[in-house]
């Protein structure tokens, strides 16, 4: 269930006619029930002197009231007219909206927001509630001013469509202003983030963007005024004025200016405070700092607009784009406002900043994989990330899902082969033990029966049983890729000439050696007749045609003249052999041509892939401990691999389907729902043996409960 008016409570100041009037106005607009209006006994001071005062006057009364309500779906808290807007903590001013968002948690100034920029998007709901509330403030110098904020929000709420321009200002003062620097970044870094956002915003939002550009590094370039604006995201440090806001023919939706006092007061009629000015000029919502925020605390445009695009309200979008809570950034306006963009859909708006440190190595050796995303998350896909759930984006090739789907089919096949191989080995040992026991009674009673059982699993039988399936799996990969390519590019299949290697390269996946061996088994396990057929076929190949006349089939062989076989070639050859009831021998040249050697798994190496799950409701860094055992009770552990001790071979899904090495500090909360991968190349495991894998997430010194998986090594 998405946020609606049923999730809102509006807080007003008791015994304050103006405050209750504004609350009533909001209630009338949205149809709130009386229970959704909460009166508290507080002063009308805009900034309280300290946290203790704020706690007693504002926080505790609101918390008690919310938790005392007869319903539990309060997600949004609006602080009304004359309710305190913040409090001092040293030289910092903490905004009420930022603190109340985390009122169910101990006050820690400037703590990281656990809902900030999550890499798997999810609309605000009961799961998010344990971490933070959506909060907002509707206040001003007069009752009429506050009511006008509500009116503008309600107009935007009903308009549901964005027609205004985005004014984006990466270059004004922040470029040279040192106040934003902290240990994690500088104003220049923030400028780069805005530029990065600008690169993709035009295509994703499909609205006009007016942006500043750098003409002279010693001169500010600035936006002189806003005309036909819907959004403003800039960094003007100097005072503003009402004349900055010229006429607009569309609803003004959200305004954010990066400075040190935009939100210091909205009750003071002053050109100094940009939030006041924005609200006074009909913006439905805005945000700003009550005091200096620094680089780490500044709002980020990418998660903000990403949330809006996906249907998030402006209130939850603000929350998702605010890196820190219990901090100085304040949010004003109606948090229920939503909007829609004229989505064009040609460029992925990937949740994460593309960088060069992502890795595109092959997806799988033997892969122990947790297929299901943690409960509570929507079904996530790369396609979702590209489409934002909106229609009209048909040109995107969904590489990750296709590869994963084929990989699962190939894995099931490889595992079956591996298990059969293991069983075959054991039965052969048992058979030989009986035969060599020297006891006649044992041999008489058991050798025949054990021999029959042994035959059911031996190499020859396995090859004959699985060869058609394995050939089908390989052909399936090629056809599947060709089909998708055709669908997405409107190219006729007849005009394509793909090989399985093309598909695996595109999907970045690998195939078990066991599948290849089943398709093209070693010549020495064939019967004499099958060997003869093989040599006949090879001779035909050498002669330029596949001459197997005694089997009523003649056709020129194409393998010699091509470096790769197309799906149709493969299909033809495969069917030919199949229809002739011939052993599924592929000629040696075809064997190597069908699939590049770098797409065949190396024996014994393995991957372990799992989803990062949430362990706590705070913003934390996770490390991981992976243990491997041959026994299900882990009484004997072969390997213990801990990312906090060595991040080598540990990767996280930084971008959808793309992995980067885990940072030394671990993987933070934002990546919950994304995948973590361990790739092993040194501690190889034995093919055909069932192993147990146990993964635990670690925060600091705390090791959380493990998840256990098992897998037969199939390479």
């Amino acid at each position: 269930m998405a946020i609606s008016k049923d999730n809102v409570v509006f807080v007003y100041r008791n015994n304050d006619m103006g405050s209750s009037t504004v609350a009533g106005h909001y209630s009338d607009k949205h149809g709130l029930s009386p229970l959704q209006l909460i009166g508290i006994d507080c002063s009308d001071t805009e900034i309280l002197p300290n946290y203790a005062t704020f706690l007693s006057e504002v926080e505790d009364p609101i918390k008690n009231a919310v938790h005392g309500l007869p319903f539990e779906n309060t997600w949004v808290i609006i602080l009304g007219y004359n309710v305190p807007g913040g409090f001092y903590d040293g030289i910092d001013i903490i905004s009420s909206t930022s603190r109340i968002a985390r009122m169910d948690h101990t006050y820690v100034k400037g703590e990281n927001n656990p809902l900030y920029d999550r890499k798997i998007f999810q609309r605000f709901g009961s799961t998010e509630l344990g971490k933070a509330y959506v909060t907002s403030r509707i206040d001003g110098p007069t009752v009429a001013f506050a009511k006008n904020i509500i009116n503008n929000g309600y107009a935007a709420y009903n308009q549901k469509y964005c027609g205004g321009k985005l004014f984006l200002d990466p270059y004004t003062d922040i470029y040279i202003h040192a106040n934003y620097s902290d240990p994690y970044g500088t104003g220049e870094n923030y400028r780069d983030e805005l530029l990065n956002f600008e690169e993709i915003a035009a295509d994703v939002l499909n609205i006009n963007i007016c942006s500043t550009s750098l003409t002279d590094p010693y001169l500010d370039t600035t936006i002189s005024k806003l005309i036909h604006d819907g959004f403003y995201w800039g960094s003007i440090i100097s005072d503003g004025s009402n004349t900055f806001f010229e006429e607009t023919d569309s609803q003004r939706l959200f305004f954010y200016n990066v400075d040190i006092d935009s939100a210091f007061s909205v009750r003071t009629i002053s050109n100094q405070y940009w939030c006041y000015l924005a609200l006074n000029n009909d913006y439905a919502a805005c945000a700003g700092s009550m005091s200096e925020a620094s680089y780490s605390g500044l709002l980020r445009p990418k998660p903000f607009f990403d949330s809006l695009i996906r249907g998030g309200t402006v209130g939850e979008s603000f929350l998702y784009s605010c890196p820190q809570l219990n901090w100085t950034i304040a949010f004003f306006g109606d948090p229920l406002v939503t909007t829609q963009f004229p989505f064009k859909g040609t460029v992925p708006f990937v949740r994460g900043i593309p960088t060069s440190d992502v890795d595109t190595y092959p997806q799988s050796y033997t892969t122990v994989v947790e297929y299901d995303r943690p409960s509570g998350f929507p079904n996530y896909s790369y396609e979702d990330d590209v489409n934002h759930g909106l229609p009209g984006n048909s040109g995107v090739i969904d590489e990750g899902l296709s590869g994963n789907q084929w990989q699962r089919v190939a894995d099931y096949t490889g595992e079956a082969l591996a298990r059969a191989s293991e069983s075959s080995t054991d039965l052969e040992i048992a058979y030989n033990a009986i035969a060599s026991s020297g006891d006649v009674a044992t041999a008489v009673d058991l050798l025949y029966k054990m021999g029959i059982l042994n035959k059911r699993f031996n190499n020859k039988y396995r090859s004959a049983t699985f060869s058609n399936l394995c050939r089908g799996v390989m052909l399936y990969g090629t056809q599947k890729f060709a089909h998708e390519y055709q669908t997405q590019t409107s190219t006729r299949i007849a005009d394509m000439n793909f090989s399985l290697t093309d598909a695996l390269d595109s999907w970045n996946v690998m195939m078990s050696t066991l599948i290849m061996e089943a398709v093209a088994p070693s010549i020495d396990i064939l019967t004499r007749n099958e060997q003869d057929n093989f040599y006949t076929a090879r001779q035909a190949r050498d002669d330029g045609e596949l001459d197997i006349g005694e089997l009523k089939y003649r056709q020129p062989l194409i393998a010699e003249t091509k470096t790769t076989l197309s799906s149709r070639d493969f299909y033809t050859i495969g069917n030919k052999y199949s229809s002739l009831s011939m052993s599924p021998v592929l000629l040696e040249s075809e064997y190597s041509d069908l699939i590049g050697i770098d797409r065949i798994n190396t024996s014994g190496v393995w991957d372990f892939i799992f989803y990062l799950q949430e362990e706590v409701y705070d913003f934390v860094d996770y490390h991981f401990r992976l243990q491997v055992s041959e026994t299900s009770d882990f009484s004997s552990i072969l390997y213990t691999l801990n990312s906090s001790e060595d991040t080598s071979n540990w990767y996280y899904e930084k971008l959808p389907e793309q992995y980067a090495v885990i940072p030394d500090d671990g993987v933070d909360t934002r990546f919950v729902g994304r995948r973590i991968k361990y790739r092993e190349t040194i501690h190889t495991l034995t093919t055909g043996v069932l192993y147990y894998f146990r993964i635990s997430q670690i925060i600091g010194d705390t090791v959380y409960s493990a998840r256990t998986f098992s897998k037969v090594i199939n390479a």
Partner: protein
Amino acid sequence: MISAGVYKICSDSIALAYDTNSYIADNMLSIQGEVEEESFMITNDNAAQMVYKEAGNIYVDFNTYGNKVIINKTVTALQNHVLAHYGPINDFLSENNIKVKLTFSTLSDNLGYTIDSGNIEE
């Protein structure tokens, strides 16, 4: 008379064969489940259908009467050999300190040769 070591090797390999049988059958069903979701499988005569059909064939091969009968006959032969040449199976196991796998004990029990819990691997 079979030695304790050979008995253990045989019973373990039979158990593994049975488990493998089930494992392979399950995997084949999983393959069919994956391929079933392919929309283009319905309209084209293609490799998806080939995979689906072959997985079904292997499932039948590993999940039907034939393989199970072979396994059961091997278990019967092994246990009858002990009964004929040694005596009660549980005595043979305990006196030779043999612990069989749970799968083998279940197979044996189903055939009327009950194995005491003390002779089964934990």
